[in-house]
Every structure is written in C-alpha cells, then in structure tokens.
C-alpha cells in the first residue's frame, strides 16, 4: 500500500531549512470496523512536526474514523499508533490530549455558554488556595490570544462570537495545552473567504513553531494553499501519500474518486444514454438565482420533463445543498422558483411534495427511512402523508403497492413486513425510491442514490432512472461517481466550493473534462 508514496527520507516540505525530522505521529496497520462496516482497513499514516498535512477522501473514505482513532474517540481493532516514538493506546479524548494531541472539530467542540477564557482553560484553570483565580485566568487567556494576534475579550461569552472566532478560540485552547499535534477537522466549512485567510495566517504561525497540523477540508483550493503534504484515503483504505507540489489537482481528484468502475461499465453497456439534449416544450422547474447564505451561492437551473440533469462536484461542493433547496428541506433566502411557469415558494417538503417533487436524501438512515417501520409502511409513507392521517390507504392497496414495487425493483427480502432497518443498503435505497415513485413525481431528486450499495443494485437503480426519464420524468441526479453522472445525464451542472462553475450538455464529454473543470484554480475560466 505504501509502495507509491514518497520516500520516508524526504524532509517535510514548507519549512525547508529545518533538519530532517522524524514523524511525531506514526499510525500503521490501523483497522476499525463497526457492525456491518469496515471503516478502516490496514491504513498507515504519518505526520511530521512543522508540517500541515491534509487528509483527503470522499464520503466514507475513512477520514473521520482515522482522526477519531488518533484522538482517542474510537479504539482501534488492530494496528499501532506511535506518538513521539512511544506506542500509545488511548481510551478517551482526555488521554490523547494529555499526549499532546488536540483536536478542533467541524462543529466547534467548545462550550459556548461559558466565556472565551474558560473555553481556553477549562480543566486547567489557574487556582489560588484551591479556588479558581479568575483574574489570572483572564490574564493568561489574553496572552494566549495575543500570541496568536487575536483581539478577543476573554471575558465575553463564546456564544456571542461568530463560528470563525469560536474556531480560533478552539485553536488557542489547543495551542495553550502545548499540543504537538493539532487536528483541524473541516475548520473552514462555515467560514467566508476573509475568515479563511485569517485562519490560515494563524495555522502557518503555529506550524512554524513546530506543531504538526492534520488538516481536513473539502475545498481543494484551500488544501493546495495551506498543505505541505497529502494523504489520500478511499473506501477505508490508504491510496497514497504525497508532497503537495508533486501531485497535480487532476491526479488528486482521480485518486479520491477512484477508477474501479470497469466492472460496472461492462454490466452497463446496454444503458448508455443517447447523449442528446431533451428540451421539449416548457420547463418543468425553473430556478433563478436560488441560494442560501452560508450554504450555496445563487444557482440557475432549468429542468424539462424527461430530462436528467446531473450535478457533479466533490463532497461539500454544494450539490446536496442545492437539492435540499429544490425540495424545500431548507428554505432559500435568495432567488425564485417557478414550476410550469407558476411561481412557487417551497417552504417545506410538504409543499414540494404537493408540487410533485420528490427527494431521496443521500443520508438514507437519518433523513430517508423510518428504520423501525416495515418495508410496506415505508413504501406508502409519502403517499399516506399526502392523503392525510384520516384517510388511510386501505390495507389491501398498501399490500398491492408494496408487492408491486418489491417485484419491480427487486427488493430483497421480498417480505413487505420486514423491518427496513434490517435490509441491506441497496435494498433500503430501493425502498426509498419506491416511496417516491408511488407518489408519481414529475421531478425526482436523487442524492447519491448508489452510494455504499453493491454493484448489482447500482446497475438496477441506474437502469430505473434511465427508464423513468424515458417515460417523461424529470430527474436531478447527484453522484460522486462522475462516470455515473455522465452515463445518465443529458445536462450536467458542475459545482465547486458551493458555486456552479459550469453547465455542459452531455455530448462527447469525458470524465477527464469534468475533473479538469473542477480542478481548475479558482478565478481561472473553467
């Protein structure tokens, strides 16, 4: 697995004049599994002092799991972790912290109801005569903040500050406990450009003082701006480790996405779409400048009956956020939507449903299925909520619908009374699709419908989407697998960093074209 990585003799880049360092963190052979999932398999990872090292990978790659293994939140099943040359086995975040590993999570893991000073020093408050010395605490915090060039009142409540400032306070806490390793898990996901710039200034300052920084972000521009080294994970396995300047963006993207689709291609020859534009008659849905502050920049979209519009982009590029706006799962704060020429305010999923829009979320478990209910109940749920609670769909009709879709979509087990939570991922996805198909939607929004399911079910779902669009249904199709988007879509919107950067008609387009568009540096024409 490590064969294609850089030689270990390389000195960490970015601080060139420092002597060759030994890694402060060395993880090897790390495996972790959860019931039914192998989250990490035999992964190796190393981190040098004085470098910013980015961990890259798409959904399910194992980034979070690896971080949580390092920070003591998860216990590893096998493998070893060495910190500063010593074997360690953490049984809680406290122990990892004591070993000099501090973590700043995406959702700031501080307590916002207390003051900035306390958040920096909680658990290590200076005491006089056994009592907390508040004056000393504020003084010390002010110094810590000043060292990072931050002008924040240590006596103010953390919740009175923006997420960006909270993020910086979390970093200040980490610096103050003399962390040798600072883990930053998507610290920039809710910051604007200016805030990111200021955060990076501070990260560099900390790095230059010799701290090893593990950085995770979905934003490629940021990764290339701040990192010295990259490790790429995919599907719980290590792909490779590189110095940043050795790895062009296009290669990084292809490593993250992977190219293990040959098998599927063979299976799928029959459904290759005729790549023509399908614009007949009026649009079903027209969205103009639809956006939501902090979530997605204004987006124009037009979709016609019988058309599949693909959304391509990396994780965090805004594709899910757009889908949620189109379904009313989140409310847009800019732009307008018309359906068949009529202006519509999609304030709730229910309104979208009434307008014959359906949305299958990428997070089947949390946002899709009702795990403790039966396959039948899940299949008829949306139709039932359309009818209201008083008019129950007659049991006979429920059984017929369930049976019909279990057969049509080849759902296993075929027992409609099985609990959905006991089904495999692919079958759960089909149940979710069945729920929406029963409502006979005019627009079907599918967010990662084939993620984490086996290849057979994947092919079935793709075929289904193709035939639905042939029957006149409009489909928005989101997938991290570019081949899949290319295979199914008539038009493709390409997104990066929450902005639509291109919209292309799917004629003679290749995966490489899309990847190059995504990889183009911000500011350059796509």
């Amino acid at each position, binding site marked *: 697995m490590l064969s294609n990585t850089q030689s270990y003799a390389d000195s960490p880049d970015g601080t060139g004049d420092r002597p060759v360092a030994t890694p402060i963190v060395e993880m090897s052979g790390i495996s972790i599994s959860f019931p039914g999932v192998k989250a990490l398999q035999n992964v190796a990872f190393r981190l040098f002092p004085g470098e910013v090292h980015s961990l890259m990978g798409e959904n399910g790659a194992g980034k979070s799991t690896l971080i949580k293994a390092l920070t003591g939140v998860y216990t590893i099943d096998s493998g070893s972790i060495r910190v500063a040359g010593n074997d360690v086995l953490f049984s809680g975040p406290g122990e990892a912290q004591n070993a000099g590993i501090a973590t700043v999570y995406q959702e700031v*893991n501080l307590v916002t109801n207390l003051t900035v000073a306390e958040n920096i020093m*909680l658990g290590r408050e200076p005491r006089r005569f056994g009592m907390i010395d508040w004056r000393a605490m504020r003084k010390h915090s002010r110094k810590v903040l000043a060292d990072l*060039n931050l002008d924040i009142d240590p006596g103010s*409540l953390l919740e*009175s500050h923006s997420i960006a400032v909270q993020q910086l306070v979390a970093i200040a806490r980490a610096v103050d406990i003399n962390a040798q390793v600072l883990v930053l898990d998507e610290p920039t996901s809710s910051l604007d450009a200016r805030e990111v710039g200021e955060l990076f*200034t501070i990260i560099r300052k900390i790095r230059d003082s010799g701290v090893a920084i593990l950085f995770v972000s979905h934003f490629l521009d940021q990764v290339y701006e701040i990192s010295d080294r990259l490790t790429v994970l995919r599907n719980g396995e290590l792909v490779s480790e590189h110095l940043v300047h050795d790895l062009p963006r296009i290669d990084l993207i292809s490593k993250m996405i992977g190219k293990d689709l040959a098998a599927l291609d063979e299976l799928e020859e029959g459904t290759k779409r005729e790549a023509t534009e399908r614009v007949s008659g009026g649009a079903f849905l027209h969205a103009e400048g639809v956006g939501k502050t902090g979530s997605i920049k204004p987006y124009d979209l037009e979709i016609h009956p019988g058309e599949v519009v693909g959304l391509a982009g990396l994780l965090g590029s805004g594709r899910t956020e757009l889908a949620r706006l189109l379904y009313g799962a989140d409310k847009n704060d800019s732009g307008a939507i018309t359906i068949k020429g009529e202006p519509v305010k999609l304030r709730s999923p229910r309104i979208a449903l009434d307008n014959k829009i359906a949305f299958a979320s990428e997070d089947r478990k949390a946002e899709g299925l009702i795990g403790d209910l039966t396959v039948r109940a899940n299949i008829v749920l949306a139709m039932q909520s359309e009818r209201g609670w008083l008019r129950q769909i007659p049991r006979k009709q429920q059984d017929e619908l369930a049976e019909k879709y279990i057969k049509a979509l080849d759902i296993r087990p075929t027992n409609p009374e099985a609990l959905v939570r006991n089904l495999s991922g692919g079958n759960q996805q089909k149940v979710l699709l069945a729920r929406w198909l029963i409502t006979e939607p005019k627009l079907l929004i599918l967010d990662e419908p084939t993620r984490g399911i086996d290849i057979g079910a994947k092919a079935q779902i793709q075929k289904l989407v193709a035939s639905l669009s042939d029957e006149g249904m409009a489909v928005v199709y989101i997938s991290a697998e570019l081949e899949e988007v290319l295979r199914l879509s008539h038009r493709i919107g390409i997104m990066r960093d929450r902005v639509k950067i291109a919209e292309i008609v799917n004629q003679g387009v290749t995966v490489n074209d899309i990847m190059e568009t995504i990889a183009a540096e911000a500011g350059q024409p796509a």
Partner: protein
Amino acid sequence: MTTTLQPAIGPEAPSKKRSLKRFERYSPIAATVVLLIVMLAFGGIRYDNFLSGQALLDLFNKNSYLFVLAIGMTFVILTGGIDLSVGAVMAMGTVIAAQLLSKGWSPALVIPVVLVISTVLGLLVGLMIDKFKIQPFIATLAAMFLARGLSLMITDRQIAITDTFFQKMNLTHINLWETTTNTRRGVRVSDVYTTWSVVIALLILVIAFVVLHYTRFGRTVYAIGGGESSANLMGLAVARTKISVYAISGLCSGLAGILYSFYTASGDPIVGVGYELNAIAAVVIGGTLLAGGAGYVLGSVLGVITLSVIYAYKDFDGGLNTGWTRVMIGALVLLFIVLQRVLVARRK
C-alpha cells in the same frame, strides 16, 4: 515565519458594545429582580405590614428548606438534568430523623446519618443515569417512589420530635433588631428575628456559590450543560461530575428534611408532595435554563423568594384561594420558559 499578521479577527464592535454584551447573560436574572420588586410593591400597597422587617424576614424563615432544595436542584438543572425525587427524599429525611430520635439516638448522630443516606440515594440515582443512560426524569421518578415508599414503611403517620436540640432549633429566634409598632394599647416593642435554619440555608448558598464559580467541579457542571459531548472531548470529568450533582441534590434534600423537622418538630412521610415542582419552579424563575448550562444559584434563591412572596399573599389575604398561588407559579414558570426560548432563539 514569513507571515505578515493581518488585522486580527474579533468582534468588529467597539469595546463599549462589548461590555454591554457581557451583561446580556444576566438579563434573565434581571427580569427576576424586576418581577420580585413589582410583586413586593404590589403586596406593600395591598396589604398592611407586607413590607415590614419581620414580614420580609418571614419570607426566609418559613421557607428555609425550600432554599436548600432549590440550591440542590440548581446543580442538577445546570447539567441539563432534572431531579423529581427531592420532595420525597426530604420527607424521608424528616421521617428517619424523627424515628431515630424517638429511639433515643443523639442528634449529633442522627443528622449525619440522614445526610449520608440521602446523599447515597442521590449517588445511586446518578450512577443509574450515567452508567445506564436512563433519562434523569425517569430515574429520579424511581427514586421518588423509593424514598416515599421507604418513609411510609417506617411510619404511616406523623412522628413528633421531642428531642431538646430539635426543639431548640424549632423555637430559638435569632433577634436582629427591635421594632416598635403602634397599637391601640400603646407602643409595642418587639424583636425582628430570623432562625438558625435560615442561617444554615444561607451558609449552603455561600458554599454552593463558591463551588459553582470557583472550583473546577463547578465549571464542569456548567460545561456539561453547555454541551456534554464537547465537555467530554475537552477531557473534562463528565461522568464523575454528572453523578456528583445528583448526590449533591440528594444531600440538599436530606438537609432540607432536617430543616423541615426543625421547623415542624416532627417527621412526616407525606410531607413535601409536589415540592420538586416548587424547587424546579424556583430554579426556572431564577433564570436558569432548563436545558442547562446557564443560570446562577443566586437566581434560584430569588426564585424561592418569589414563591415565598406568592405564599405571603395567601397568608396576608385569608380570602385568597390556595389555587391561585399554584396558578401564579405555573404562569411565572411559563413566562420564564417562553423568555428563555426567545433569548435562545435570538442568540442563534
């Protein structure tokens, strides 16, 4: 080393606004103070002697046990929990004390025994909540049944306490100053007094305040209320603290039982039914968030005084239906809950 430091991030607002923001956290407690002043003024206008020294002190004298209950409850609610067992544990305290005293035990032994038993009960509740992840309300509900049931098994009727120490605590007044009132028969001089129970309650208040604000344990209590998983990720002693707050609440309930048996010179297994609601109401009216993480033990004391004022209305106005006191308490609780929702919503 080459980075040029840009203008730092911080609140853009000038420092004056910042200092105002600092006080925003006291706004619920300010609301309580205003409410209390209005209620006292209303009583003063409506009833004679409502604002006399003795009447004001009686707000404390008559409810010393409620102060202690509310202080214990504050710890629990600050962590985001709730303790429904406090009234029953208090009753258990009175019964155990009365029973042991009637068997000839010395008060010097009885009081520690009561406190230890109630603390251990709270500790067990805390362990259930922490180790088995049982919701606090159901775990403390079980404790309520248990404490009430144990009291009833000891005795199903009131036991009078004849012990001289308890009698003394019952009857001794601590005279503070003299006051003169004009009556038809001339000028009457009387002492304005308080009781030892109030002194004990105030002592507990001071201890609670110091613990909550000047110890790591206290700050961990707040941190858990602010976000249990965050507190955990920060490496704080979450489990130990969570268990401890229920033990503290148990201890306070036991002590409230002792104070109550001072007050009534008896042990009674059915006393304190619904006191958990009063304690919770006092904490909420005192500005503590029921979700935890924000509030002050001083606020809870103000909350108890507010309840005491409502009871004083009833004492001063014989025609007032007791029902109104409950309705007023309920209305105040609602008012503060809605206020909390508004404040929390505005912060987001």
